[in-house]
């Protein structure tokens, strides 16, 4: 049987804990769940292949948020992340991360992942953030996925590659009961009953359209089409602060990180066309991104990452990192354009919009135990609401989720679900394969993402949003009534478009709900240009109620680490002021 040919099939399996997504948080969650109860069955489901899936498929250059004793304290880190997010943070989860992450670093070290140390044997932590020191390079960062995979094999985690989860199953009393998935190469469906489910499905990185027009030339791994956000939404889970978009500075056209976190500690900096610095700090925040955006449009753009002033040996060292891990084709790209860092600066730009708590603050709402608002359902990594997660946050919160989910599974039996739910979902999934004629998924995706760029990209204008919502509804109707998939691979793309469409609707709905401006460029509403702490110093939670998208306010939990009044606006002072 040839690959991609559609096979009509449906089977059912069960496990104690189901982890969906085998990138960064997922493998750690699966591992910790299994270690918590070695007799239990843990299934790790992955749309691609766990060996090379997710944001770190080619490894990572370092940790961007390491809280290392002697360099930083959990209190300092919690304070900085709170300030960087305009105060809208439930500190408990951030503080717990900050306390636990050093233990995870030591564990990763025991897996064979090395972290940079100085001649005294101390961790060589670098300063990139506005206030504290948290960046720790990984000299063999290209081996991360291999090291994780070894651990998964050793712990005998059951890995199912090339299965895309499409919907969660729930019992009548609202508990999670498992998930429905489809094989991306045969279209056969698989129902997985589980006592607890952990979603680790990455960012919504295929939401906006890259300016190159190449649909898969996204900042995030293009496989991260926001499936986790859509699944959580349809299961009735709450999603927090989705209006706090993710927008990244990047290498123009290549659309990958430039990357100031690597080069900055060596003396590189972001500069305008006059070669002058214009931002105080290269750490990504909405406020920093607003200054970046303003500079691009000011006549002083383009913006560059400047490193030609550095010693050639230093540049070689930076190059050896940038061209080896995370996005190794950066070197090939620069070579193709004849750019040598020794003589020319790197032209930068800002990315299309997406959702990603890795760098921003939105996502499926979770508490400090990684629990969502649906009993038995967990989320971790880029799709969960703990802000500024990065890779170490995915590992640390994935670990929290794995342990808590196994405790839940150990004290609960399987929840019963209605078989009619499976039949309905099978009809929905397979619908594009049943049509003789229609519109292919790539065209619907292009149009949806073009609409996202045209109408939803900040600055957010109410009138544009209203039009955007209408246009998206038209595209949704085409998607539901006319989309065709002629083989299993096209069906995978057709299902991803449905996630993208859901994320676009959620981005629009959440943005219109918050009637103020906050988080710099991420939520800049021209009709409400000011920050309004009186009415909007709160989270927003979006969820599906009686089939309709709704938003509500949720109070920020009392701080664990107090913030003094004169510290609250430290991240608002990103622009370098002209000095006499």
């Amino acid at each position, binding site marked *: 049987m*040839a*690959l*991609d040919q559609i096979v009509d099939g449906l089977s059912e399996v069960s496990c104690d804990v189901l982890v969906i997504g085998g990138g960064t948080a997922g493998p750690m969650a699966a591992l910790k769940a299994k270690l918590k109860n070695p007799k239990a069955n843990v299934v790790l489901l992955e749309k*691609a*292949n766990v*060996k*090379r*899936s*997710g944001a770190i*498929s*080619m490894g990572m250059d370092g940790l961007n948020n390491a809280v290392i004793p002697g360099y930083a304290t959990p209190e300092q880190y919690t304070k900085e992340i709170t300030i960087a997010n305009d105060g809208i943070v439930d500190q408990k989860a951030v503080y717990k991360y900050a306390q636990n992450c050093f233990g995870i670093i030591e564990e990763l070290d025991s897996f064979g992942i090395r972290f940079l140390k100085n001649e005294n044997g101390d961790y060589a932590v670098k300063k990139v953030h506005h206030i504290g020191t948290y960046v720790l390079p990984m000299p063999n960062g290209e081996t991360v996925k291999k090291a994780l995979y070894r651990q998964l094999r050793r712990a005998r985690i059951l890995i199912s*590659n*090339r299965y895309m989860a499409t919907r969660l199953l729930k019992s009548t009393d609202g508990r999670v009961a498992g998930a429905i998935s489809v094989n*991306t*190469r045969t279209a056969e469906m698989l129902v997985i009953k589980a006592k607890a489910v952990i979603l680790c499905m990455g960012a919504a990185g295929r939401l906006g359209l*890259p300016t*190159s*027009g*190449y*649909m*898969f*030339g*996204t900042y995030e*791994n*293009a*496989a991260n089409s926001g499936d986790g956000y859509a699944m959580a939404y349809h299961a009735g889970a709450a999603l927090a602060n989705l209006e706090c978009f993710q927008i990244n500075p990047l290498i123009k*056209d*290549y*659309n990958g990180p430039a990357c100031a976190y690597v080069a900055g500690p060596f003396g590189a900096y972001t500069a305008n066309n006059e070669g002058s610095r214009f931002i105080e700090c290269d750490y990504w925040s909405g406020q920093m991104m607003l200054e970046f955006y303003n500079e691009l449009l000011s006549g002083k753009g383009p913006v560059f990452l400047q490193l030609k002033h550095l010693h050639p040996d230093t540049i070689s060292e930076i190059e050896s990192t940038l061209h080896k891990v995370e*996005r*190794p*084709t950066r070197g*090939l*790209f620069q070579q*193709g*354009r004849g750019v040598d860092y020794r003589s020319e600066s790197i032209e930068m730009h800002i990315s299309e919009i997406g959702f990603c708590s890795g760098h921003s603050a939105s996502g499926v709402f979770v508490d400090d135990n990684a629990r969502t608002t649906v009993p038995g359902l967990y989320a971790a990594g880029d799709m969960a609401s703990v802000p500024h997660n990065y890779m170490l946050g995915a590992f640390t919160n994935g670990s929290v989720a794995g342990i808590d989910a196994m405790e839940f599974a150990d004290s609960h039996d399987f929840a019963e679900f209605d078989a009619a739910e499976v039949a309905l979902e099978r009809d929905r999934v397979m619908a594009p394969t049943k049509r003789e*004629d*229609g*519109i*292919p998924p790539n065209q619907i995706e292009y149009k949806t993402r073009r609409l996202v760029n045209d109408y939803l990209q900040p600055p957010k204008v109410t009138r544009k949003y209203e039009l955007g919502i209408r246009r998206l509804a038209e595209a949704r109707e085409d998607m539901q009534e006319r989309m065709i998939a002629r083989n299993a*691979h096209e069906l*995978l*793309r057709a299902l991803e478009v449905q996630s993208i469409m859901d994320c676009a609707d959620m981005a629009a709905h959440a943005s219109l709900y918050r009637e103020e401006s906050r988080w710099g460029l991420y939520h800049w509403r021209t009709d409400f240009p000011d920050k309004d702490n009186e009415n909007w110093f709160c989270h927003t939670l979006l969820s599906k109620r009686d089939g309709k998208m709704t938003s509500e306010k949720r109070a920020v939990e009392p701080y664990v680490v107090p913030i003094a009044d004169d510290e609250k606006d430290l991240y608002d002072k990103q622009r370098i002021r002209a000095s006499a």
Partner: protein
Amino acid sequence: MPLASYQTSVPVVVDDAKCIADKGCTVCVDVCPLDVLRISDMTNKAYMAYDECWYCMPCEADCPTGAVTVNIPYLLR
């Protein structure tokens, strides 16, 4: 509505002389995060079947014979 096929120059190139897919190797097809590589029925060698590339490199890095080359997709080159 009738469909037309669309010409596109694909970024991943496989050297047929080095590729050992005809001997059963499927490494590049297995690891691709976007699942865009296939083994050709005609040549029994790997090739890029879908132009949906994140130019991420696992196919090239993991190929046991060095047969795979990832180029930057033309639109962003």
